[in-house]
């Protein structure tokens, strides 16, 4: 089968080339000068018109388009850069504001604390002074009371002694001597207590 096809191919090739070369005797149409001038003429006209229209009308438009696109892109990049810078500035400002407000808050806090501490100290001092005053007053009263109580006790002792003696002996004793004795006794007692 394959052999048959190959042989057939060769035969037809041969046949074809035969016809080709038979036709070739007429020569290549390219070398027939009959229409050379016409081809040159029309080539110059068509190519000339094409060249002129492309040069004068179309290519400047395309180049314009490309240029405007290029400049547009550059412009856009520029504005983008500018906006980026602006946003960076805004961010810096914002951060500064935050920092400032933080510092302010801190100072407010410190002020308030100091105020409160001052207040507390003042109040405490006043309170302490009041307390001291009261304590000293009470102490004074106490010491007064102590001093007075000794005299009163002596007086009571003297009177009681006088009454007692009167009841026992039925005689009135000089109250001043009794008071002196009581005084001495109380002094001795006091000394004993102190010792």
């Amino acid at each position: 089968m394959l052999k048959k096809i190959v042989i057939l191919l060769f035969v037809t090739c041969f046949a074809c080339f035969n016809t080709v070369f038979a036709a070739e005797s007429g020569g290549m149409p390219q070398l027939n000068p009959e229409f050379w001038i016409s081809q040159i003429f029309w080539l110059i006209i068509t190519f000339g018109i094409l060249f002129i229209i492309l040069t004068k009308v179309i290519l400047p438009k395309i180049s314009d388009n490309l240029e405007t696109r290029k400049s547009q892109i550059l412009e856009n990049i520029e504005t983008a850069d500018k906006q980026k810078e602006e946003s960076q500035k805004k961010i810096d400002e914002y951060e500064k504001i935050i920092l400032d407000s933080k510092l302010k808050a801190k100072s407010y806090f410190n002020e308030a604390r100091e105020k409160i501490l001052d207040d507390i100290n003042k109040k405490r001092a006043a309170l302490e002074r009041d307390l001291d005053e009261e304590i000293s007053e009470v102490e004074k009263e106490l010491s007064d009371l102590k001093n007075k109580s000794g005299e009163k006790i002596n007086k009571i002792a003297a009177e009681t002694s006088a009454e007692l003696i009167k009841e026992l002996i039925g005689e009135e004793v000089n109250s001043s001597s009794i008071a002196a004795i009581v005084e001495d006794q109380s002094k001795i007692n006091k000394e004993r207590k102190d010792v």
Partner: protein
Amino acid sequence: MASNPMYQFNVYRIGPEIKLGSVDISFTNASLFMVISSLAILIIFNLGAKKKTLIPDKLQLLSELSYSFVAKMISDTAGSKAKPYFSFIFSLFMFVLFCNMFGMIPYAFTVTSHIIVTFVLAAFIFIGVTIIGFMKHGLGYLKLFVPSGVPMVLLPLIVVIEIISYLSRPISLSVRLFANMMAGHTMMKVFGGFVISLGIVGGWLPLSFSVALTGLEILVAFLQAYVFAILTCIYLNDALNLHH
């Protein structure tokens, strides 16, 4: 006659015979496809350039990509001095590319498969580049034929070779494009003929070949337009920046 692979290159008159004096400048199928290619370029790029949106649509993107593609090709090969010639090289590249691509449509005529068309383009480029070179550097442009760092003994030989290679530029430039297009289209026609003659039994092999060749030819169509444009840039570079 239609099975003749060279038949597709025939030029024939469309419409009446137009004579300018004794010269025949009739409108032919070749002229028709030149007009179609030019119109297609103009329509596509005009639509692409008309809307000025920041985010391009498909046609605008296409035109802008082609613009930057050619601009990059020129600045890479010929430097910034070649900027004034941008529109010519752009037109040239687009014209050759569109002519090649329209030739890929079945039953279409390939303008660039004719040596006279490619030769006129190449000769125009050659003459233009030579004029630019002499205008920029005066007679100093002749230094192009004397490469630096060549021993004195070899110099006469090298200069002759350089001159021959310089003078053969238009021929090599035009023949490269013309031969590529003609060979490709002839091949496709021959393989297409094989499909018919081998029929349903053996026709599949040349058919698959034909399909593959179509892809290859589209690649070649683009590549040859690119090569044509980039060689123009290189010649221009020689004329503008004279250092060999």
